[in-house]
Every structure is written in C-alpha cells, then in structure tokens.
C-alpha cells in the first residue's frame, strides 16, 4: 500500500491488517502517556483545501502520537487563495520534505491527481462526493469491535447517499467485509443509476426492525433549494431516527453517525445520547485507525511498535508490520 485513496484500493485482508494494527494503537491510546516514537523524523503534511476541524484534528493527533512531525496547511491563510494550483501547492510542500500528505478537497479525484504528482504517501481525508476511506475504516472497526465481525450483519445507511463520500466508502467497506447493506433514502438522494451490491428502500420504517446497524448521514439544508426534498420536517418524518423509531430497533442494534450531527433532523437529540449510539466511539476509533494507516504507510517494515518508555513494549511488539514506503520485505 503506497497510498490510501479509496477503499477499492484495499483487499479485505488489508482491512483486517489495518484493524489488527489499530487494536495495538487503541492500546497505546489507553496509556497514561499515549505516545510512541515509531514515526519520529517523519513529516506528515495535512493539506485541507476544505475546512474540516474534526478530521484534521484526528489526523494531527494520530501523527503526533506516533512521533511524526505535522506540517499543517490551511487554505484560508495560503497561496491557494491567491490562485495557486493544487499541483504547485503540492510540489511546494513536497520540496520542504514530507513523507505523507493527508488531503481533503471539495472536488472528487483530487487525492488521486496529487498521487500522480507526488512521491509522498497520499491519504485521502475526503474528496468531494467520492471517498473518505479512513471514515469507512473507523466505522467498520467500530462495528467489528461491537459484533466481532461484519459478516452477515444488516447495515442500513440512511440519508443523502448521492452526495456522500462517507456513504460511498462505507458501501465498499461494509460489503467487502461481508455485510448486507441497505440504502434508505428518497429516490432524489440516491444515484439515478448504480451497480452497487446493495438493497434500496425508500422507507426507514420498513427496514428498521431488521437492522443491526442504523447508520445515519448528515442532511444539508441546501438540498431543499435543489428540490431534492420539500422540507427538513418532511425529511425527519420519513427518514429521521426519531425516538419512536429508535425504540423499534432490535436490542443489540447500534446507531452510528459520522458527525457533525443535526440533532432533531436526521437523529433525535435524545437518541444520540442512548447507550447504543456509538458516535463517540467512532471518534475515538478514528484516532486509532488513522495511526494504523500512517504506520502501515510510513513505518519501516522491520520496526515494531515498541513503547517510548519500553514498559509497555511487549504488549504491542507483536503488532503486524507491513511493507510501507521503502519496504522491501514482501
């Protein structure tokens, strides 16, 4: 794995390997001082052409906990505002010496374009409507931690599928890991044509009882002006996870949301606080997953995850290692 651009770049075995490493990272994250020197001397640039506080913070935290230096880059204070091209921007940053670049862009495909222009490992932190692979990995990791496996689970993804990079990546990840995925949305929020291995329903009430995972997507106000649905009120009436609907979920079913939530729209405020809502688990797992991805892309194949103070080293030294950039062991 030289880059992480989309879930389609990964085999299901690769995902299992990422989860195994993320388990070790989660152990590090539970320590009193959650920091190891594994990526000391490596520089990770975060290149967010589109604002995203939480994803940027999560990658920043992940890189720092592995001892990497983080070079932040935000568009509002940069040359991009003066008309600099993406290519010139990446070539400028690369000239300063970076090992990985984490990219967020409002346009689909930009991380792939950047990978053609850069020798650094490129990690897609969300591009347009296309992909958000680390979100899908942390979501799958969260489900796997709860159920042991995704194999055979019924997962409903509810809401604005067509405009959602989270939906696209999760559809790929969930189905690759053996889950049955049902997309629940009005036809206007689904692609007009698609060849994905999923079921489609236009009624949340019809599918609710059978779900092991109810995954809600953020709904945006601007879709009303595009005539994709009449009002937030009608959306909530049909597709919102209200308290009444949440009561109908099975006893083991869980509720997920990538954030930020519109409480009272796609999810009732009270429902978000229920014990079977795993929204904060998703955020915590996000750091572990991003640490695992950075480690697998940048870590030397011979290097193990020895704790910085040595005392916890044994518990994680068995973490699988992978041939990342510069690795030659495969």
């Amino acid at each position: 794995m030289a880059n992480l651009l989309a879930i389609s770049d990964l085999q299901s075995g690769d995902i299992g390997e990422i989860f195994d490493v993320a388990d070790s990272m989660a152990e590090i994250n539970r320590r009193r001082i959650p920091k190891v020197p594994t990526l000391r001397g490596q520089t990770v640039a975060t290149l967010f052409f589109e604002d995203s506080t939480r994803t940027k913070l999560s990658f920043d935290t992940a890189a720092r906990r592995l001892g990497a230096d983080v070079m932040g880059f935000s568009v509002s204070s940069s040359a991009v505002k003066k008309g600099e091209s993406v290519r010139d921007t990446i070539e400028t940053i690369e000239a300063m010496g970076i090992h990985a670049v984490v990219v967020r862009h409002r346009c689909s495909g930009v991380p792939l374009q950047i990978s053609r222009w850069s020798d650094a490992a490129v990690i897609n932190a969300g591009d347009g409507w296309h992909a958000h692979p680390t979100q899908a990995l942390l979501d799958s990791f969260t489900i796997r931690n709860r159920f042991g496996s995704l194999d055979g689970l019924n997962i409903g993804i509810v809401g604005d599928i067509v405009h959602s990079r989270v939906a696209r990546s999760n559809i790929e990840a969930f189905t690759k890991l053996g889950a049955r995925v049902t997309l629940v949305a009005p036809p206007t929020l689904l692609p007009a044509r698609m060849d994905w291995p999923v079921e489609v329903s236009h009624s949340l009430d019809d599918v609710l009882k059978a779900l092991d995972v109810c995954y809600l997507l953020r709904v945006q106000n601007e879709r009303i002006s595009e005539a994709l649905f009449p009002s937030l009120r009608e959306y909530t009436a049909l597709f919102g996870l209200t308290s009444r609907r949440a009561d109908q979920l099975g006893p083991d079913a869980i509720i997920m949301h990538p954030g930020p939530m519109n409480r009272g729209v796609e999810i009732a405020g009270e429902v978000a606080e229920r014990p079977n809502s795993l929204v904060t688990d998703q955020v915590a797992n996000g750091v572990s997953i991003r640490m695992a991805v950075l480690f697998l892309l940048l870590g030397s194949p011979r290097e193990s995850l020895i704790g910085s103070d040595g005392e916890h080293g044994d518990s994680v030294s068995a973490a699988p290692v992978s041939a990342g950039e510069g690795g030659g062991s495969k």
Partner: protein
Amino acid sequence: MTQSQVPQGRTSEDIVIKGGKLIDVRGERAGDVLISGGRIVAVGEDLDAHRVLDAGGALVCPGLVDLHTHLREPGTEEAETIETGARAAALGGYTAVLAMPNTTPAIDSASVVKDVLELGRAAMIDVHTSGAITVGRSGEQLAPMAEMADLGVHMFTDDGSGVQSDALMRRAMEYATGLGVTLAQHCEVAALSAGTAMNEGEWSAKLGLGGQPAEAEELMVMRDIALARLTGARVHFLHMSTAGSVDLIAAAKASGLPITAEAAPHHFTLTDACCESYDATFKVHPPLRTSSDVDAVKAGLASGTLDAIATDHAPHTPESKELPFDEAPPGMLGLEYALALAFTELVDGGTMTDADVIARLSWQPAAIAAMGEHGRPIAVGEAANLCIVDPSATWIIDDSGGASRSRNVPYVGRTVRGKVRHTVCAGEAVVIDGEAQQ
C-alpha cells in the same frame, strides 16, 4: 466576397498526384491528378509535372472539412491560434475548418468576423467562421446575423452552450429563414446539466461526480425539431452523443424536415468509463456516454442519420486540464486524429467503408456549411483541395498534441489506422509526407 479565395502570397507550382485511388462523391477509380493555378486541370493516366506527390497505395480524396473547430483566437491564444489550429487541421487532412464563435470576444458581429477571416487568410488552409446566434452568446438578444451573413457566414451557433429560451430560438430560426442561413445547436438544457462534470450513470455514481442525463441533450433535440417544423428553418445538430438523440434525428429526417447532424470522434470512440482516472482530458461537453450510446452513434453514422463527423477540436492548456475534474474546462483535441479514429472505429470496428467515412468527413459537411470549393468531385475545373491518405498505415497516438498549442489528447497510446500523407489546399501542397510545409 467569399471565404474561399487562394490565400494571398501563395505561389502555387504545378503539381501531379501520382498513383492513388481517387474517392469522391462520384465513386472510386484510379488516376493521376494534375493541378495548376490552384485548380485541377487534368485527371487521368500518366500525368506529369515538375512537382510529384506520390500517392501509391493511398486514397486521394477531396480535402476534409471540419464543421466544428475551436481555434481559440481571439482571446485564448495560449491554448491555440488560428495559425496553429489550421496547421493541425492540415496535418489531419483538412482543407477547410469552420471556427466556432465561443472566443473572447465572441464572434457575434461583423467586426470580429472580419478579424477572424483576416487572420485566417494567412493560415495553411481555408478558415471559415460561424457566427453567434445571440450577442455575447448570452442567450438574450439576437446577434446581427445579416451583417455577418454578408461576410460569408453561413452557420450560426452559440456552441459551448445551447440557446435556452424557447421563444428566442423560435425567433432565431424564423429570422434565419429570411437570410438563407443554417442554425447549429449545442443541445444541452442548462437546468439539467448545471453542476455536472460527466454523463449520469453508473460511473458518475461510483466516482462521486455530478452527472447529466442523456435527456439534458435529448430534450433540446426534441425542442429544436419541433421548432424546425414550426419555422421551416435549416437546423444542424452539433455533436450528437446519445442513442436517444440519434433516434430523434432519424425520425425527424424521415418526416422530411431539413435537418442535419454530426458526431464527434470521441463520441464513437470513448465511454464514460474513461473518467475513472479523474483526468480532465476526458472531460467534454456533451460528456462521454455509455457503450450503448457509442454503438448508436456508430450506427447513426453508418445509416446516414448522422451526416458528418466533426471534431469539436477544443484545445485547453495543460494547466487548465490539471484542475480538479469538476473545475477543468471541457473539450479535447481532434483535428489530427479524426480520420484515423474513423477508419479504426467505424470501418475496422464497425460496418462502414473507407469511402463512407470520407463522405462524412468531406463532401457531406462541405454541403452543410455551403463551402462551395470543398468536398467537390475530383474533376477538371474544380478547386484543388485534396487529402491524400495512406489507409493501411498504422500508428500510435502520442501525447505531444501534434501541431496544436495544447496537448489534451484523450487517445494516447491507441493504435489507429490511416495516416495523412499529403494535403493540398487551393493547389498548394501544405502537407507533404506528413510534414507541414510552413
């Protein structure tokens, strides 16, 4: 004044084209062609002249005519100029091109038409221009079509976008009938294509790019067929890209309407799967469609429903094509590839003959654009506008962009059949053995 005079300063010597197979509207036969003073003066056996162009094993055809060329001048000379675009055309076997009016400023008045024609007179081949239907191509007010028609403009279009207003298009058609000119439409309902970057289908779903449905094109084809019926105007449909459009054109022609239509090489060669790389070289309007649309376009060309192959040669700088797919400008190069792609996809990969392809690249488009000196029979007294192509030569398309200032070539690495050997325009050999002579 016509647009087809021998360019000033050209000194043409006598030329003989020897040993080729002649193909024109009258059929196929062997023969040499003797050219003097810009005209064909003899056709027959064993002709001689000081200058000999070898046509052994080659087809000698009327020069190709492109109905749809973006020359970018005035306004975007970093992407193409009339000079460089005309050179690319000559290398592609063309002796005449019709410039599209979406320049900056738009070609929407006599003064801009004069400027373009003046620049065209120094070019290697005949440069004709279309004129805009509306002022500034903004779709709001009719452009002065009569003053442009007086300068020889025969085709009017707002290409780059369609005329959205039903009422304005109706009046434009009525007005055009009074001038005897043809209106050409870029069929795209803007309200259905806004915010899109490719065809709507499984690929746009997968790639997370906004897609426009085939119906964004077909609805305007339907409307303009209805308005052509209402007004009696001659309407030419630009770059038809969908199976539905081909069916609509076929039905309208069967009902006797005076309409014509063209297809672009990329729409019979490439599909929307090409967008998988997010390389904006594959972004074009109308967008690359599905394989069943490609098949329908090929069938439409074979049946004659689609009258012409037109390149929609649309140069863009490398920087602009490196923008994100959503933001990059649409369009791809075509002039140096159209003939070979047509032989490869429509003859070898289809049901047409080489002669069928030449018809759709030469005399049929010449008739649509009323270019009286082009696409003519290879006969004594006719203007010597000729293309000599080796139909058996295969070559691999590279990324150089050829003579164009741009290099947005979507066919890189493809092996194609058919290579232009010589191009003769107004009696002058402007391309000899595949080399431009200026």
